[in-house]
């Protein structure tokens, strides 16, 4: 069924263009209205498509072909959009959370001089993200993929006057480029072997006997390598090991950006992409195992780093990396609706947490250092309530949303059967890693909550304390909506196996046509994991309460004093940035410097540029000697030139002639007349018939000759112009029978 899906990304793009062109002249209120209307319209159209059109649309979902984009050789790519359950869910999350964040940003950015530019970028981002999730082929998806990367870069470096912000933007962009390279390789492989880049074509090519199962390298099939390369792209965009390093730095951008791009939407693009390409991934359990293990490792690793960060947004950034790891572990264990479910719940609670961070930093005169916070519970009651709801959600406390989604992933990892026999341990390993990560999550989030909100005294100086105030309604209302979402959104994904009602899991029901049926786990296991993850969350919270309630408590100090080296290592984020600097960045810089001094300075500058000048200079010196300004010398050269020209122009040319041979039996008639240019000048002809008889000379152009014997002969005719003495030899072979 067709539907004007193009409208969905069109509205934000239109808003972005209008704001870029006219935003500076418009008042702030009007800028905000345009931006919010753009994303609001996209939200309304998405909701119409997703809730009213999609249920009647049939298996293919809603489609919209705008036109042919690329058609060359075997490659045919339409600029086409498709909405099925998966992209519908994504669209709703993007537009709805996006709308809330636009509203919040109107308050948060109220004093910023570049108000219009900010909203233009936000709109542009939403448009690109919607293209990403609606694209029906990998190249269209890739446009959105690159578009959100660009917006991410623009918004991280939004306050570009500070070098650190600009550097963070560059770091994000370059790290993403590395991933995108992998993504492109994956696309090339899929095109070469599946013959198409449209998602339905690839899905139908991805069968156990299809072209993607041909062995390629190291005995692994094409699908394995394609999946792996695409996953490299996903690790860049979604901040997984080893390309996660840009995300914490990306917190340099304005907080609404962190909430929208670096928590709720863009960073989930990798998870979305894997769910979109699930047909390819499901072919090769080994690739799925890599996705799941990398996800689970990232979840654990980032959670540990989160233990010791002292910047509000940095904690949330590592928390995001960690939660994205959960999502990858979800899709990597074949639990696609679990991964997407966590994506949705995470979008709500993490956007809420980030906006709370914005609200708190707004109150703290812009500082994000949690060491100087504390006791904000009473001073910022609304923010506190929202943060508490989102905190319980991310820790996984029943009945907040994160509980259901995280449990779905953990139980799914334990119960999954996609790996076959010899990789069966992967699911169990991932399950254990995720449970440890969940424990860590509960700990560091509780630490964050307590250090910011608990206690009676704020540890900041008087000047900041004096300023602390609750944010205006334009900021708190979106917060409240997100808190409600973070609390209740878990209801869309209740495990169907528990209530013996397959449609209880609304999300899985919605996704079922796209990624297959819900991964169901036996009720006993499900209950067991629910209890276990709840228990782990409570343990994590209890430990954190002992450590940090009302400020840094004795156990926290004692722990820090006991393992100072470990504490420093964690605070320094395991010095991964430094490692990358040593291993990759410095060698590249040294190499580049070498290229600069050798290739650029010597080859380009000296040899090519100055060499060209030198050659021109030499010829110019020679030419200058000729240009004496003496008219007589010029005339002499002219006379010589004319003489040479006349000499060649008056050269006698050979008369154009050709041989015509007519055979009748053993008699041949040779006609050596000139071509079409007849002249009265008599020419001399000499005929040699090649059979040993004397040469016939005369002025006649035609001769008749009788051969005595059969055989092959070559007739030579020499045409001579007696006036100039020029000669022309003509040859013709005859076969006489």
């Amino acid at each position, binding site marked *: 069924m067709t539907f004007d899906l193009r409208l969905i990304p069109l509205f934000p793009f239109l808003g972005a263009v209008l704001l870029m062109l006219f935003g500076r002249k418009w008042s702030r209120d009007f800028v905000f209205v345009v931006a919010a209307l753009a994303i609001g319209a996209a939200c309304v159209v998405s909701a119409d498509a997703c809730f009213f059109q999609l249920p009647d649309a049939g298996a293919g979902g809603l489609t919209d072909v705008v036109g042919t984009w690329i058609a060359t050789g075997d490659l045919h790519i339409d600029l086409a959009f498709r909405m099925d359950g998966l992209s519908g869910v994504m669209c709703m999350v993007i537009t709805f959370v996006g709308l809330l964040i636009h509203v919040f940003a109107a308050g948060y950015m109220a004093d910023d001089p570049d108000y219009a530019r900010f909203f233009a970028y936000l709109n542009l981002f939403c448009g690109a993200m919607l293209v990403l999730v609606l694209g029906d082929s990998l190249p269209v998806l890739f446009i959105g993929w690159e578009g959100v990367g660009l917006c991410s870069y623009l918004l991280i470096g939004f306050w570009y006057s500070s070098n650190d912000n600009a550097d963070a933007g560059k770091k994000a962009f370059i790290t993403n480029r590395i991933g995108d390279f992998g993504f492109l390789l994956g696309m090339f492989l899929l095109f070469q072997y599946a013959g198409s880049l449209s998602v339905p074509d690839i899905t139908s090519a991805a069968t156990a006997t299809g072209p993607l199962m041909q062995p390629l390298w190291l005995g692994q099939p094409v699908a394995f390598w394609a999946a792996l390369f695409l996953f490299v792209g996903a690790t860049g965009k979604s901040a997984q090991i080893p390309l996660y390093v840009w995300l914490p730095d990306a917190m340099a951008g304005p907080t609404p950006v962190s909430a929208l791009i670096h928590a709720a939407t863009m960073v989930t693009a990798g998870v979305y992409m894997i769910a979109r390409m699930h047909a390819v991934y499901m072919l090769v359990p080994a690739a799925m195992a890599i996705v799941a293990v990398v996800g689970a490792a990232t979840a654990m690793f980032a959670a540990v780093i989160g233990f010791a960060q002292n910047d509000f947004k940095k904690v949330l950034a590592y928390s995001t990396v960690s939660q994205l790891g959960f999502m990858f572990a979800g899709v990597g264990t074949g639990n696609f609706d679990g991964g997407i479910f966590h994506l949705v719940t995470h979008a709500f609670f993490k956007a809420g947490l980030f906006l709370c961070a914005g609200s708190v930093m707004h109150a703290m005169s812009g500082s994000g250092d949690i060491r100087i916070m504390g006791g904000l519970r009473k001073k910022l009651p609304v923010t506190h309530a929202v943060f508490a709801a989102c905190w319980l959600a991310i820790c996984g406390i029943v009945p907040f949303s994160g509980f259901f989604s995280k449990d779905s992933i953990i139980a799914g990892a334990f119960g999954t059967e996609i790996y076959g026999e010899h990789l069966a341990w992967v699911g169990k390993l991932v399950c254990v890693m995720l449970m440890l990560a969940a424990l860590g999550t509960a700990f560091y989030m509780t630490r964050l909550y307590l250090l910011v909100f608990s206690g009676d005294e704020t540890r900041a100086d008087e000047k900041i304390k004096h300023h602390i105030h609750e944010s205006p309604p334009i900021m708190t209302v979106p917060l409240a909506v997100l808190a409600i979402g973070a609390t209740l959104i878990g209801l869309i994904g209740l495990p169907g196996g528990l209530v013996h009602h397959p449609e209880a899991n609304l999300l899985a029901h919605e996704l079922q046509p796209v990624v297959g049926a819900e991964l169901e786990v036996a009720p006993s296991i499900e209950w067991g994991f629910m209890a276990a993850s709840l228990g782990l969350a409570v343990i994590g919270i209890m430990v954190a309460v002992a450590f940090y309630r009302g400020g840094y408590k004795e156990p926290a100090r004692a722990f820090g004093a006991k393992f100072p080296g470990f504490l420093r290592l964690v605070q320094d984020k395991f010095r991964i940035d430094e490692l990358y600097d040593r291993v990759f960045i410095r060698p590249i810089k040294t190499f580049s410097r070498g290229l600069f001094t050798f290739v650029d300075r010597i080859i380009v500058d000296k040899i090519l540029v100055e060499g060209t000048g030198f050659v021109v200079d030499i010829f110019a010196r020679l030419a200058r000697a000729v*240009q*004496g*300004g*003496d*008219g*007589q010398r*010029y*005339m*002499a050269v002219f*006379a010589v030139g004319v003489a040479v020209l006349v000499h060649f122009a008056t050269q006698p040319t050979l008369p154009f002639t050709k041989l015509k041979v007519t055979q009748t039996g053993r008699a041949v008639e040779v006609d050596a007349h000139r071509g079409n240019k007849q002249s009265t000048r008599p020419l001399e002809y000499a005929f040699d018939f090649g059979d040993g008889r004397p040469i016939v000379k005369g002025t006649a152009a035609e001769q008749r000759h009788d051969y005595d014997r059969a055989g092959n002969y070559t007739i030579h005719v020499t045409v001579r112009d007696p006036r100039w003495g020029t000669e022309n030899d003509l040859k013709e072979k005859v076969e006489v029978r």
Partner: protein
Amino acid sequence: MPTSYYLILSFVLFLIGTAGVLLRRNALIVLMGIELQINGGNLALLAFSRQLNDLKGHVFAFLIIALAAAEAAVGLAILVGLFRSRQTINLDEATLMKR
């Protein structure tokens, strides 16, 4: 007399004129050389005209004589101008085109 005699004379005249133009330094002599070249050309025209029994050659020759007169007038005027500006008509010293 055969046409070739006239043509040889015409060629000799042209060569003498060319030598004058290229080798002499006095601009007045150069002008005279040009005159000789023109007349060499004229002679060739007249010779062919006679051989081919066609009066067009004579018409051309008269045209060229008129042209040569105009050329001499302009040339002499330039010489006068040259002499006024640099008190010499030696062509070695008139290398203004270098600049």
